[in-house]
């Protein structure tokens, strides 16, 4: 075990646990998550903020972690798919995605799941337009989005009260 000096590193909350990143403050959060904390559920599809595969939630807000410098998130709460998958809400989303076969290659999926979480927290009963808007920062090349939209709608219905 590496000795963790209380004074060094950038402190933030990662999936509910306080942690410190020893990476340079300019390092992309995406790289910190994947390389330093070995949380590889957050995917890298472009590193330019365009694809959404690297989406995580910071204080509940959906962000592309490839565009966030770890130095800028001190004391904030980061939720990745590894943390989110332990929640009751994930179970509802997971079942809805499964029933609609909304996962094909799966590379966009962790990001899509978190985008859905952000969307449903804001609009527990989203309209068709709100769903499309909510997913529009996350590219999916496989599904044509129909199954994803369907899955979000289904999750919203089944999860009434959860969001």
């Amino acid at each position, binding site marked *: 075990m590496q000795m963790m000096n209380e004074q060094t590193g950038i402190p933030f909350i990662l999936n509910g646990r306080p942690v410190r990143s020893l990476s340079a403050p300019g390092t992309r959060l995406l790289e910190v998550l994947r390389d330093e904390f070995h949380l590889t559920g957050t995917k890298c*599809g472009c590193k330019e903020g365009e694809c959404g595969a690297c989406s995580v939630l910071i204080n509940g807000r959906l962000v592309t972690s490839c565009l966030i410098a770890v130095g800028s998130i001190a004391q904030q709460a980061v939720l990745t*798919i590894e943390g989110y998958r332990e929640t009751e809400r994930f179970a509802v989303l*997971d079942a809805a*995605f499964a029933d609609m076969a909304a996962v094909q290659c*799966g590379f966009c999926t962790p990001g899509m799941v978190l985008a859905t979480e952000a969307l449903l927290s804001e609009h527990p009963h989203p309209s068709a337009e709100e769903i499309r808007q909510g997913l529009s*920062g996350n590219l999916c090349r496989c599904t*044509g989005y*129909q*199954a994803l939209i369907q899955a979000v709608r289904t999750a919203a219905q089944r999860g009434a009260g959860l969001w």
Partner: protein
Amino acid sequence: MMPISQSVIKKDHLAKACGQAMYVADYDTTQMLQGLILRSPHAHAKILSMTYPPLPEGYFTVDYRDVPGINEVHIVKDDTPVYADATVEYIGDPIMMLVGPDERELERLLAQIEVNYELLPAIIDVRDGDTAFFDYHFGKGDMDQAWAEADQIFEECFETGYQEQAYLEPQGLIADYNQGKITVRGSMQCPYYVHGALAKALGLTPDKVRVIQDVTGGGFGGKEDYPSILACQVAVAAYKAKGQPVRVIFGRREDMEFTSKRHPSRCTYKAAVKNGRVTALDADVIFNAGAYTTLSAVVLQRGIIAASGVYDIPALKVHGAAIKTNTVPNGAYRGFGAPQTFFAVEMLMEHIANALDEEPLAFKLRHMVRQGSVTSTGGRYHFPVPLPAMVDEVRKMSDFEQKRQVYARQQTGTTRRGIGISLWFHGAGFTGSGERDIIKAVTRLHKLADGRVEILASQSDIGQGIKTTLCKIVANELNLPLDQVSYDNPDTDRVPDSGPTVASRSLMTVGELLRRAAIRLRSQWQEGVEQTVEEHFKEPDFVIPFYIDKFQGDAYPTYAWGVCAVEVAVDTLTGVNEITGTWASFDVGTPIDLNIVIGQMEGGLLQGLGYASMEQLAADQKGRIRNHSFSDYIIPTAMDVPLMKVQLHVEAYPDGPYGAKGAGELPLVGAAPAYMSALEQALAGPINHIPFSAEDALKLIRQSRRA
């Protein structure tokens, strides 16, 4: 619906949904070296000399001199070098790889490498090309008589652009050389293609080569041949690294700029018409192959075989050429040459109908092939052609007639509307005799003593759901619960070569082999013992043997069919159009899983609509592709999805498992012409190229105003 069609939860669903599925970039890199490729900045040049800077401890270079076997990547023809040795043939041609532990240091060092070039003349525009990599001719009927007797002759040139597969996971592989054996793993469609390429480039016997597919984040053809090239490059690096694995994961820009794409095309068609019927068609199909041959031969073959579309035209003359240019080599992309020719022939039929003052759909229906008709290559449509019924379904769903009539009236105001329809097929499985003569697929079922059964095959699940559908077939035949049948990502040390994951063949061909294997296993089933059964491909008896030298015979045993209607609204001030509806009916035979098949249809259809419009990619005059990021190469987002209604029309194929045929590629193939036909109606002018942009629309609006 057959019980097998009922959707299940996909085998790989949970691992992917919760982020546990291991893609190649997800392995711990602490013990790995990274590789960075130095690429040619010139479209065509002779390499005079290379000077490497002094390298820190732990860093080394890899170039053609390090290739232990032959410096060629085995694909179809083997002209692609592993690393350039004498010349570079396109911007991006790999020259060498720099390998070491730290990526940033690699970038710094790579910039210090000096290469001296002697520039050579480069051919960028396909029209300037003077080398045909492949040149094919075939035909049927009496062309001379048709021209002589024609009432009218139509001639038109159609062009299509590049299309980038844009799988969300970029290309990536890891190679490891240990105790005389090379192991390569990562993102790929065809483990045994990679296997063959490695054996040749490393000069190893097949037993010293191991290839493992990792969970793959999409392929769409883009991971058909390209991983063979990258595998050779990374493997040579690992060979030199002696014991330390080497990893190369592309960034998006490197992936978009330098890996294979759909061939841009120029198709010149001439049609003879007599008494309102097309009696002859002369199709001249030119594909821009790029700098090396890679898969151009087979892509071109599929393209030209589809040159006459779904129409029964008595006299046919087809010429196809894949022309060398000093641009990135083009390769496989869902549809494999057919989207290009289907665009041409569908638009041509529209235009002839318009000129004859006949409703295009009625005109097309009058020319349609039916069961027993002769194919373009003198084969037969052996099975019922369900297009008329599918057209009716789509007409009904979309309210086609009504809309078509309303939009045909003079439109005023800033919004113009249109609706169009297209018809197409996709030949199921490999073109010609490839399956019988080259692939010779082998599959196995391995039953464990406890009664669980494992599928041994080399198909990659790249998102299309093959892990689930193959297991469903075997479980069904053996009366086992689905969780008692498993299929792991293929590892060539463990699985036989059941062929590549291409050509919409996996479910139809390999699925049927597994079904038969399962029947045999059932008949020999013994409780409590381990058993293995093996099954080999056999061509169905009805097939008329295909000869590629003459383009004669059944190019495909059967066909999947597609009908699609697209409705658009165009803003005449901006030229921007919105798809207000898409309706489609697809016949892929029996769906082995309804959700999975519908997902394939929707995803493919949207790629086809993107191909027609927003997906714009071009090489500049120097041969450089500049739109190499998702901000310059735009693919559809959730905001761009139209209302999409997809339904299946089932015409069961007796030689596919439970009646299933090829599915994956079909939905993309003919989407563009439906879209363009709708735009033609809205804009009251002809369209003969894609991608069709808002600027193109404005141009057409101005033209039709003048007219």
